[in-house]
Structure formats: C-alpha cells, structure tokens
C-alpha cells in the first residue's frame, strides 16, 4: 500500500468532520437558543479537533512541506472527499438536528471499528474521538425525540428534514477503489458491515420519536468522488477566505 493511498483514505474520513464542523460553526451566535448555540459550536470544536489530528497525520504522510492547514484550506472543490450529507445547509433547526443525527449514528459506528485499525495513529484518533461522538449522538438523538414528539409544528419540520436528508444516507456506506485497498490492509473500516446496524438504530429512534421512516429507495451520491452539491462552493469560499487572501498566514 502506498502512502498516497492512505492519504486519500484519511481525507475521505476527515473531510466529513471538517465540513460538518464548518456547517455547525456557522451557528455561532445564530443558534435558536443560547444552549443549542453553545452545543452546536462545541460539537463543531470537537469535529475540528478530530480533523486536526487526522490532517496532521496526513500532512506527515505526503511530506513536501504539507501542513494541517494546507491540507484543510488549499484544495479545490473536486479534491474534497466528504459525503453530501454533511455539506447540506442549516435550513432550520430541524435540518441541523436531522443532519447531525443521521451523521452521528454513522460516526459512532465508524469510530467504534476504526479503534481496531492496524494503523496506530488512526486507532489512537478513533479512541479519543469516540468519547466525544458519544456525547454528540446523545445530543442529536435527544433533540430528534423532542422535536418529533413535541408540537405539531416541530414534528412536521423534523419529519420534513428527515424526508429530505434521507437520500444522502446511503452514500455513507460507499467505498472507492482506494478505500477498498485500505480496508483490505486492515487499516480502514468495512463500511458494508455498518449499514444494518446504522439503519436499525436510526429507525428505532425515529419510531420512538413518532416519526415515519422514509420509504424512498432513491439515493444521491457524489461527494466521496469529489462531485458535490451546489452548497459546497459557498462553504469553501467562506472557509478558505483567509488562506486565499493572505497565503501562508498563521495566527
């Protein structure tokens, strides 16, 4: 296995945390209440912290003066490997929570397997991150229940968000040829094994929340191959602004 392949694999994992972290960071000062504002930005901070650990390792792998910052900020849209789910906008609080919940359930199962990676750097990151993600999952699950089993308005909104975001869930389990090699080497996580536990956990929570599981079998994909939704360019223009304007700047 080549270093470049492991690098690509790590991007596929870390970009999810990076872009979701960026989305949640947008809520800083804009959350619907002080508590939810702080919760979303705290989760964002955890995700950025995890991203830093992944990117510091990735930068070491490729060398050539790469740093966590160049990996994070100096790629073009097609070079980001995150799933489409995490780049979807904060349409309303229900969307923010539905997106978080649909990702958290996956993220927890994923890290629980990555803990056993043959790669000691990745298993160390996973062991650290899973403790944080268990709190994220509690937070988003709790809110799914409160909104689903809340007022008619909250139930209608969270159902609409789940219905809309459902199409992005299948991509969580897609792998590239490079991913397959890394999985083969005992470093990556075999995503197909996560699919059943994922959907059974999600459906269980939806039922407890008096929400309807979408029946649609039509799923959207592309992010993992660098083909993103129209939202991605806007995220990057915000996120990369400082590095593009003042190249190599540091705080």
């Amino acid at each position, binding site marked *: 296995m080549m270093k470049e392949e492991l690098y690509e694999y790590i991007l596929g994992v870390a970009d999810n945390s990076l872009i979701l972290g960026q989305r949640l960071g947008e809520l800083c000062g804009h959350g619907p209440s002080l*508590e939810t504002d*702080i*919760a979303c930005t*705290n*989760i964002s*901070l*955890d*995700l*950025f*912290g*995890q991203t*830093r*650990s992944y990117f510091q390792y990735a930068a070491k792998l490729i060398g050539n003066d790469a740093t966590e910052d160049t990996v994070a900020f100096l790629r073009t849209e097609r070079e980001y490997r995150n799933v489409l789910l995490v780049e979807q906008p904060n349409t309303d609080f229900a969307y923010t929570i539905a997106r978080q919940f649909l990702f958290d359930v996956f993220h927890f199962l994923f890290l629980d397997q990555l803990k056993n990676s043959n790669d*000691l750097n990745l*298993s*160390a*990151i996973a*062991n*650290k*991150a899973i*403790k*944080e993600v268990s*709190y994220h999952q*509690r*937070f988003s699950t*709790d809110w799914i229940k409160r909104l689903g089993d809340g007022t008619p308005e909250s139930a209608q909104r969270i159902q609409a968000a789940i219905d809309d975001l459902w199409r992005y869930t299948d991509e969580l389990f897609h792998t590239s040829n490079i991913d397959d090699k890394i999985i083969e080497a005992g470093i990556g996580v075999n995503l197909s094994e996560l699919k059943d536990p994922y959907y059974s956990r999600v459906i269980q929570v939806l039922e407890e929340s008096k929400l309807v599981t979408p029946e649609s079998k039509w799923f959207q994909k592309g992010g993992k191959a660098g083909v993103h939704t129209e939202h991605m360019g806007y995220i990057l223009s915000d996120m990369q602004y400082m590095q593009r304007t003042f190249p190599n700047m540091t705080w």
Partner: protein
Amino acid sequence: MTVIQGVHIDEQLIPILEKVSDPEIPVLSILEMGVVRSAQLDKNHVYVKITPTYSGCPAMDVIGDDINRALKKAGYTSEVELVLSPAWTTDWITPKGRAALENYGIAAPLNPEADKAVLLEGKRLVSCPQCSSKNTRMVSQFGSTACKAQFQCDDCLEPFDYFKCLK
C-alpha cells in the same frame, strides 16, 4: 512521584510543571489535570509529552507554550509533544485536582453510571459546588467548554458547570 498511573515525571521537574495551569481553569495545575504523560530530563534538555482532554481543546497550544516558557525560565531547553494514546479520561484528574475544581465552582465528574443518569435521565445526583445540595438539574448538555455541562441548583439557585465524565 506517583500522581497518576503510568506517568513518568522526573522528580526535579515537578515543582516547575506544578506551576503551569490549565488556561481555562487557572486553579488547576496541568499535573492535577492529568494532561502531562511524561517529562524526562536528558542532560539539560526536557522531553515532555502532553495529551489533550478533548480533541478540539484550544488550550493545548497554550499549555505547550507555557511549559516551554516555564522550563526555559528554570534554565532548561525543552520540547513538547502532543500524544493521543492512551486517550485522556477524567479518572486522571487527581483528588487534589477534583477539590480545586469544586472550590473554583465546577462540579467534579461523577462515575460513568451516575454521569449517564444525570445527563440522560435527569437524575439529581450532582452536588452544587456552592451549597452542596443535590437538588440540581441539567440545563444544557454542553456548557462553557466542550468538557462541561451547564447545571442549576434549585436550592441556592446558582448556575454552575459540571465537568462531564469522560472514560
């Protein structure tokens, strides 16, 4: 020196590192917090390994700088390395550290079962750092920093932070 299991800190470095505090909880030394995993002296050079409480803890860069500064002042050269494994747990906060937290107004972490019960089931088990009453409730699972939850005491009515259990 056996503050924390599996930690190796050379005796003569303890008085120096003891004075470096967590910038977000200034009453707590980094040794009591359990973030220093090793500090070893080789001639005049010190190798320090620290581990973050949470991955995104913004204090880690500052702690690294503060350690280097403190050691330089004491006449040593030094380097600080951030290690992730084994992952930090709230069990590594020393008894002295827990007391310092409580004095500062932050409730120290409970055991994992009790922690779950207060955060998920709304059980009243956390003692108020102001009046010691257990008539307290969670206001928000996330508080002023990622490691804390926001609580309120229903007897003295003071809001306070609870340091969440991380294991």
